[in-house]
């Protein structure tokens, strides 16, 4: 069982893709989130094999990403998106995986759109489910002319599994500045 303490070190950051825009334009951000590296490292093929054997075969992470504008007193929500990423553990007959990993339980990803994602490496599979990168766009009038401080919070909900208790991870970004120009 993985300790809950390791989950307190989730990281998030917001990256402004258009740090400056005219008042009629739009500003885009990328909000990145990652489970703590120590947690990601602790998930191994042995972990998922043990989970599979106990019929613990769907690992679902529900992400809630909130983008906000810092004000003098309150943080005004600009956008909030919720999505789910899943792993389905299955018994693979793929010779390449059997040969490379000497393992037969393998994750299949399900993305936000409900489409399957097949992985060639276990690191890719972990990156898929335990990190998120969300694009968010706001219109310039929503921010107003001048400098705005934009931040984000990300929550990741996990349910109980053989290797971890249920709970929610939360991480906040350092705010970034964007400039809206009067045209």
């Amino acid at each position, binding site marked *: 069982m993985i300790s809950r303490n390791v989950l307190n070190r989730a990281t998030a950051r917001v990256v402004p893709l258009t740090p400056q825009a005219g008042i009629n334009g739009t500003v885009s951000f990328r909000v990145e989130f990652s489970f703590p590296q120590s947690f990601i490292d602790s998930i191994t093929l042995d972990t998922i094999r043990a989970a599979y054997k106990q019929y613990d075969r*769907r690992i679902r992470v529900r992400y809630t990403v909130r983008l906000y504008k810092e004000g003098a007193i309150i943080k005004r929500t600009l956008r909030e998106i919720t999505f789910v990423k899943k792993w*389905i*553990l299955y018994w693979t*007959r793929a010779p390449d995986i059997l040969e490379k990993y*000497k*393992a037969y339980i393998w994750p299949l990803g399900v993305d936000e759109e*409900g*489409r399957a994602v097949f992985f060639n490496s276990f690191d890719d599979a972990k990156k898929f489910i335990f990190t998120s990168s969300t694009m968010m766009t706001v219109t310039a009038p929503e921010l107003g002319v001048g400098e705005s401080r934009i931040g984000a919070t990300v929550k990741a909900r996990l*349910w109980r599994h053989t290797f971890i208790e249920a709970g929610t991870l939360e991480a906040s970004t350092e705010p970034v500045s964007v400039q809206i120009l009067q045209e």
Partner: protein
Amino acid sequence: MTAIQVDKESVEPHEKQIWLLVPRSKEADSESPAGHQDERPIKMTQSICPECNRILKAQIFERGGKVYMRKVCPVHGETEELYYGDYDMYLKFSAYWDDGKKQEAPNVKMDSCQCPSNCGLCTNHLSHTGLANIIVTNRCDLTCWYCFFYVKKGLEGAYVYEPTIEQIREMVRALRAERPVPGNSVQITGGEPTLRDDLPEIIRAIKEEGVDHVQLNTNGINIALHPELAKIYREAGVSNLYMSFDGVTARTNPKNHWEAPYAIEACRKAGLGVVLVPTVIKGINDHEVYEIIKFAKQNIDIVRAVNFQPVSLTGRMTKKEREKYRITIPDVIKRIEDFSQGEIASDDWFPVPSCSPITHFIEAITNRKQYELSIHFACGAGTYVYLDREKDRLVPITRFVDIKGLIEYLDEVADDINSGTNKYVEMGKVALKIGSFVDKSKEPAGLDLGRLLFEVLFKHDYSSIGKFQMNSLFLGMMHFQDKYNHDEERLQRCDIHYLTPDLRIIPFCSFNVIPEWYRDRIQKKYGVPVEEWERQHNEKLEDRLYRGQLRKQAIKEGSGASCLVNEMLSGITGQP
């Protein structure tokens, strides 16, 4: 290398464990198939050589929006085959992947097993039996050119296979001994099972062994000729007929075009539900898939389902021949969408394992392993349609129920309960919320699907599922494999099995895809040579062949079709 790692910690074998004399496959030492520039690799799997059954590495890849399989045998060369006719649907459907509960009461030893040899089942198998086939005879009253499953007189080594009632009881006991979920659904099949005069006794024996659902797979001809049989079978315990029905014209359905309406009428009088089973072959009857649904709609009072079966290409075929006939589940779904002008669209279909969240929810609230349809997503698909009597249209369930949302919600509630929340609180929430997934304004008049769903979820018994089925027409797809598209990942999850007198439970796609290891061997071991059977029974095999009496009678009447056939097919074929 060895094909799979064996799970040594699995449960102890079943006491009826049996060693088999099936030749072990050669190991998967084939070269990896090379990719091409215009292809997008999806994944690897294992398959077999269509010539020598050697286990091969196989590449699943996308090209031109379709999914293909390629494998290379060091002796017989490369085989490329259409695997799934739509890449987008492949990705959408594979997201419902769900491995089942495994076999905890295996009938064959694990360490002698290397799929697909020695099936029977072992603890590598991932699905319990969803439907168990019992062949009661391999005699048939028809001689269809594409059928692989009837005894042909004159062939060397032709055997009549007819297990005794005691053997059948033993087979059913083996099915009921499955763990963690005992088998509860049997299909009596053949040949043509109605050729056995003791069929009612067989049905009663199966029911007495504790099976709830007994389905009779037939061409319907005997029932058309002797309508009283429908009542006899119904009273003996048959739940429904599973009747071949390949098209709505004599050309596309030479098998029982003239007889099926009479059989349906007999079932109507007996109150015996009918499932129509079209085998779909590209270029032969794929243009009639929607007409078949319309025929079912006209008889919706007694036809419960249409289960399309894209053809399985058995025997040796050239690539050109295979391309001519090969059709896959997405192709049939697309044809239905096109011919129905969107009345039943591609988005209305879901893969069979999409039912699993319902099972997960019921398991979470009952704390007991439940019956689960955990087959591979590429094996089957389905949807429910309802008749809007006011508009005389079929309305797919997805038009008024948020199926995707419901599935996701139930899966999440199951996770909540498994994470420690109070199950009674969660059940209360589900009971209150279930109706919100149904758009009452679009629901066909007279239907209360919210209540039916409630009963399925909270009563979760055979009768509530039956009630749900009775109010709908189920449209299904089941694509059995052949040696060209054989995928070990599909076979490992197969839940349609055969019960055999040596008390094995053999997956359909082993039994029929590699008949030389399974079907033929069983029939030879437990059958009698045709000549001997004829001597014992004082009749010739061909005595029971159907000679087309109803067709001849209809032609003799001069209309080209009898009144009943005319009435049932009018509005479909445009005949008067």
